[in-house]
């Protein structure tokens, strides 16, 4: 009897010990944690440095391309397929990821998308989307990627990312900041803005304001289809990239004569034609 009791107690002790050993590891206390396992390689700061180093290395380039990928939410696998394809395109110097990286804003979704972003051979820049800010997504975004509004210059063109998710954030886009960023005396070929949502129907005046600030092109996502439009009386083109589910992406080609936009899948691209509205 005594030995039976001793054996039972040993087993309970063993189980308790195992539980404590396991508890010492990092386990998930809820779906709403804010510490995704993402490396610095996805941060905006890291990628700006990486692009500056690359520019130094290659020197002036008359012609280059920018891959435009958007809304990988809930489909990290197709996002990976697109990015692996983009990695093989020799003229692509960097990637713009125009929002909705996550679908419900939870940690796990950010981890999956980070896994893919870390595979990018080119610098990759993300801008926050409306779904990214759900739950505690804004905190995750700030920790993992960094600023919600930022800019960088590459080959004499300025690229400006801005948050325009009006349902989730107050006072966006930050028009004063945009005006400040678009100014400058430096030699500049183009000023290109990118955000998740194209100018809202209720705020189309933004397109005119951006045009007045000297912006040449707006690049966006959100609408889950290719779209390329400009207000007839403003003539500032806005290009929306479709979502990744269908393994499609946009391609911006910049050359001395101007820029062109293409709607691409993994086998071919078609030049997009701007429509007036």
């Amino acid at each position: 009897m005594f030995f039976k009791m001793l054996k039972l107690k040993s087993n309970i002790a063993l189980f308790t010990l195992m539980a404590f050993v396991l508890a010492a590891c990092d386990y998930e206390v809820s779906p709403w944690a804010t510490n995704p396992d993402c490396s610095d390689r996805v941060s905006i700061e890291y990628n700006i440095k990486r692009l500056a180093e690359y520019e130094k290395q290659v020197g002036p380039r008359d012609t280059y391309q920018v891959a435009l990928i958007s809304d990988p939410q809930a489909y990290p696998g197709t996002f990976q397929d697109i990015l692996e394809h983009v990695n093989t395109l020799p003229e692509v110097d960097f990637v713009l990821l125009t929002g909705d990286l996550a679908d419900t804003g939870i940690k796990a979704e950010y981890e999956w998308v980070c896994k893919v972003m870390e595979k990018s051979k080119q610098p990759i820049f993300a801008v926050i989307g409306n779904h990214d800010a759900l739950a505690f997504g804004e905190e995750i975004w700030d920790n993992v990627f960094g600023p919600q509004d930022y800019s960088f210059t590459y080959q004499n063109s300025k690229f400006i990312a801005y948050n325009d998710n009006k349902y989730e954030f107050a006072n966006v886009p930050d028009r004063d900041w945009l005006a400040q960023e678009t100014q400058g005396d430096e030699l500049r070929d183009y000023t290109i803005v990118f955000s998740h949502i194209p100018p809202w129907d209720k705020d189309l005046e933004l397109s005119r304001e951006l045009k007045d600030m000297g912006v040449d092109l707006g690049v966006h996502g959100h609408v889950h289809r290719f779209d390329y439009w400009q207000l007839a009386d403003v003539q500032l083109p806005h290009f929306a990239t479709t979502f990744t589910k269908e393994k499609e992406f946009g391609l911006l080609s910049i050359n001395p004569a101007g820029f062109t936009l293409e709607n691409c899948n993994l086998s071919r691209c078609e030049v997009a034609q701007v429509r007036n509205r």
Partner: protein
Amino acid sequence: MRSLNSYGDLCQLSEVIVLRVFWAILLMSLTLSSWAMEEYMDVQSGSLMGLGHVSYGARFNERHNVMVGAGYVPKLSYHREMMLYSLRYRYDHVAQWNIGGMTFKPFSVGAGFLIGDHSDLFLILPDRYPEGYYAPSALRIVFNYQASLQVTQKVNAYFDMSIVDVGLLGYVREPEFYRDNYDYFGLEGITNWGFGVRYVF
């Protein structure tokens, strides 16, 4: 930029009422259940259910269980302080082995609703959004697997692995992505684990 994290008082009040009523009704229905074969108290940690999660459960025949519970996560460097509420179903397979005088039950599976109670999460869509714009951010469906060890007649200890709804959906849609990037057939990328102890009344 400041986010619009707080919404109307009425909306917030509705959520609080929904949460409390949900939990209270289910707790009462279980405690009053004279038709349960067995009733038990369950304390779990991890596996998405909180740092601690206390549940009251009832077994309705040899295999079917329903549990209702409440969990808690204190303020951590990677987590806001919040309460969690759950309503779960579990199926216990009959397979069992005797190991060192204890009964090992290797296979139970279940699913349940998990509600996070925090002002930045919503069950009812805040007024600023168009109708149906988002699914409730406070509600998740969690699927789980358990292996348990009956250490005494009244005490069971168990290991729990869980998968949140978007994880299961993602794995079904794109298994290659998870298999390419994570170990154990990609399950490492979607599973979470925890452990618990169950006391049968």
